[in-house]
C-alpha cells in the first residue's frame, strides 16, 4: 500500500486557444494517487528537477489545463509527478514543451466586439445569476443588439438559452448582432466566440451571417454553473470555458449593414465570455 508511485509517462501538451492541455498516462489504483503535481517554467528550457517555486497546480486527474495564457500565444515546459496516498512522490516525467494557439483576438485587428475576452460574463446584461429574467425580457426568444448603439451591460444577456432550458420555455433562442462595415472587407476576417461555460447537455450553436448558414458549433459539455457564477478565472472555478474561432467565408460579409446571428439550436445555454470580429493583419 505504501509503494512509491511510478514515474509519470506519456506527458503530452495539446495547444489550444489561450491554454495548453496536458495529458499523461493514468497510474492505476495501487498505490492510490492522492494527486499529481504539475511544474512549469516559461519557455522551452527544461525545469530540471521539480522546484516547488515552479508548481503550477495539483490535480487528481491525469489531465490538467494551463489556462489564462496570453491570447497571443505562450510557450511553457512542463514536468509532472505523482504523490501517493502515503505522501510518497514518484519521479517526475520527462519534460514536455507546449505552445498555446494564438488567438485572433491578439493577432487580428478588432472590427467589432461584444464583451471583454477575459473569462468573465460579469460585464454582460443580467450577469452573473439573473438568468430567469431573460425569459421575461425576451418572450419572443430573440435578442437584438446593434453595434455602436447598444451596450453589453444592458442589451446582451450573459446567457443564450436553448431547447434544453425549461426555465426559458425550452425554446431555441437567437441573438442577432447587427454591425455596419464601412467598405467591402479586403482581408480575411475571423469570428471569435469565447464561452465562459456551457451546460451538461452540450448542444449546437448555429451561426448565420446575413441569413446564410456559416457554421454549426458543437458545444462541449460544460459545468452548468455559469448561470450562477460569472468568473471562470477564479482559482478552482468549476466553469468550463471553451473557445471557438472561425474564419469567415469569403463574400459573406458585405459593405454596410451585416447581421451575425447565433441560434442555440440544440441543447442547453451558453454563457458568453465575448464575441468579436477581427480582420487578419498583413
Amino acid at each position, binding site marked *: 500500500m505504501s509503494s512509491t508511485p511510478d514515474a509519470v509517462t506519456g506527458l503530452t501538451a495539446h495547444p489550444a486557444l489561450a491554454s495548453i492541455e496536458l495529458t499523461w498516462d493514468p497510474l492505476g489504483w495501487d498505490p492510490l*494517487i492522492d494527486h499529481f503535481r504539475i511544474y512549469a517554467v516559461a519557455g522551452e528550457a527544461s525545469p530540471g528537477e521539480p522546484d516547488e517555486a515552479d508548481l503550477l497546480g495539483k490535480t487528481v486527474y491525469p489531465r490538467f489545463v494551463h489556462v489564462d495564457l496570453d491570447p497571443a500565444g505562450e510557450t511553457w515546459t512542463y514536468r509532472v509527478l505523482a504523490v501517493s*496516498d502515503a505522501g510518497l512522490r514518484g519521479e517526475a516525467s520527462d519534460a514536455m514543451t507546449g505552445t498555446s494557439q494564438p488567438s485572433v483576438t491578439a493577432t487580428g485587428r478588432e472590427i467589432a466586439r461584444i464583451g471583454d475576452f477575459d473569462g468573465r460574463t460579469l460585464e454582460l446584461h443580467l450577469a452573473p445569476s439573473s438568468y430567469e429574467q431573460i425569459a421575461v425580457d425576451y418572450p419572443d426568444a430573440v435578442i437584438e443588439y446593434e453595434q455602436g448603439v447598444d451596450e453589453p451591460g444592458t442589451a446582451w444577456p450573459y446567457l443564450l438559452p436553448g431547447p434544453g432550458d425549461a426555465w426559458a420555455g425550452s425554446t431555441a433562442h437567437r441573438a442577432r448582432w447587427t454591425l455596419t462595415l464601412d467598405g467591402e472587407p479586403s482581408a480575411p476576417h475571423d469570428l471569435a466566440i469565447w464561452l465562459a461555460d456551457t451546460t451538461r447537455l452540450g448542444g449546437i450553436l448555429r451561426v448565420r451571417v446575413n441569413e446564410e448558414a456559416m457554421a454549426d458549433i458543437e458545444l462541449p459539455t460544460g*459545468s452548468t454553473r455559469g448561470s450562477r457564477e460569472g468568473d471562470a478565472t477564479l482559482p478552482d472555478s468549476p466553469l468550463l470555458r471553451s473557445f471557438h474561432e472561425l474564419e469567415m467565408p469569403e463574400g459573406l460579409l458585405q459593405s454596410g449593414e451585416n447581421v451575425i446571428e447565433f441560434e442555440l439550436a440544440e441543447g442547453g445555454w451558453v454563457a458568453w465570455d465575448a464575441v468579436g470580429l477581427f480582420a487578419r493583419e498583413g
Partner: protein
Amino acid sequence: MPASVAPAPVSRRRLLQASGASAAVIALGIRAPQAQAETAPQPEGLFSLGVACGAPRPDGMVLWTRLAPEPLAEDGHGGMEGKDVTVRWHVAKDPEFRQITARGQALAQPALAHAVHPRVEGLEPATDYFYRFSVGRQNSPVGRFRTLPAEGAEVESFSVGVVSCQAWYHGHFTAHKHLAAEEELDLVVFVGDYIYEYGITESNLWRQGVEVGPAHQVEAETLEQYRLRYALFKSDPHLQAVHARVPAVAVWDDHEVQNDYLGGSSSTGVPDDLFAHRIAVAYRAFYENMPLDLEALPDGPDSDITTGFDVGNLARLTLLDTRQFRDPAPTDPEDQQRPERSMLGAEQEEWASDRLADSPATWNILANGVVVAAITEDRVDMWDGYPAARQRLLDAMAGAPNPVVLTGDIHRHVATELLADFSDPGSGTVGVELICTSVGSDGDGAKTDANTPDWLQHEYVKHYDGRRGYLHLRLTPEELVSSFYIVEWVEADDTAPKLLSARFTTPAGDSRLIPA
C-alpha cells in the same frame, strides 16, 4: 451486500482472500499482533479527531481513530510523519479500564492517513463496554458502546439517532450536542452528506466565531483535500461526542464526492474515465474517516458500503447505497418512467429485497440517501426520478413487517407515510419514511419556507420543519416512537436549546404516523 458483487481487477479484497489476510490486514490498520513499528516519540495531541466505533455485531465492534496532532495540516496527513505507528487499544467493562476485556494493536500507516480500524471480537452480546486507544503515554478520549443483542434475542427497546447533512460552515453542530446527551441512545445513523466538498469562502461561512485558511477555500478534489475536509468537520467537539457516545453506521449521498454526481458520472462535465480518479480518492477518504468494516475499503473507484445487521428479533437494519449504482438522470418524462431504470442497481436491489423477505424482525429499517416518497416529478435526484424502481422497493416492503425508511438530503424534517402505490391514493400504506433535517446545512432556517407547499400538498406527508436538528427513534416490540428535534439557531453559536418539533407513534402492524 454483496459478497456476490464482482470485484474489479486488481482487487484488494481478492488479495486478502488469496493471502490469508494477515499481511494485508496488518497493512490496513486492522490488526498488528506484534509491534510492527518503531515507538519513536510522537507529537502531543495525536487523538485530536476523537474516537468512534461502528459495524456493530453481537460479539464485537470496529473501533476507529486517526492520529492527527495537527488535524488541519494542508497535506492531509494531520501533522504525522510518513512512518508507521503502533496503536494499542483496550476494551473494558468500566470507564476506568480496571476490567479489561480485550486488547490489541493496529498499525497506523501514512497510506491510510494514520487511521486504524481494529475489529474487537469475542465480546458478550447486549453488554456495555468502554474503549480507548493509546500511543506511547498518550491516551485517546474514552468511547463507549453496547454490543448488539444476540441473534434472535427478545429486545425490550432500542434507540437510534438519525442525522445528516453536516455543512460545518453553515452552523454549529448544536444538534450533535443534544443528541450526544440523549438518555436513551444505542446507535447513530448518518444518512448522507457527512462532509461537503464545496470550497469554504466568505459567502458560505455562516458559522460564526471561526476562520479557515486558503486550503479550505477550494472545492475538494484530491485525496489530501478530502482528508483535510474530514479533519475540519471532525474537529467539532459535538460530533466527536456523538461518536464517542454510541456506535455509528453511515450511508453516503452525493457530497461525499461531488454535488449531484450519479453513478460514475460527474455533474460538471468531467469525463467518466477522469472522474473515476476523484471518486476513488473521495471513497478512500470516507473509509479512512469512518468506523467501517474492511468490506467498505474501496478498490479504486469501486466501494461497497452496503451492509446490515439485526437487533435481536426487534429490528433489521439495512444500509443502502443510492448514489454509486444508480442510472443517469432521466432525459425526458418518458425516460423517467422506463421500467428498467434503477436507483440501487440490480444486485443491490435483489439483496435489499431478500433482506426484507427473509426478515425475522418486527421492524425493518432501510437507511438511504434520498427521499423515497413521491413529492414532485421534477425532483429527479430523489426516488421521484426513478418511479419504477421505487415501486419495486415498495412492493418488497409490502412483504416485510413494519418497514421504516430513514432519509436525509433535503435539510428538512419530514414525516411521511409510504403508500403501496403512489399513483393510487387508496392503495394503503406499506411503511413510514422518517426524513431527518440537516445538522448544519442551510444555517438557521425557518419552520416553513418556499418548499413547504410541495411537501404538505400530500395527505400522506404528516410533518415539515425547515430548521436544523436530529431525529430520535425508540423501537419496542409494540411501537416506534419518532421524535423530530430542532434547534432554532446554529449560525451564532451552539447554545440553542433543543425543541420538540413533532412526535409520532407508529404501532407495530399499523404503518401510520399517529401524533403523540
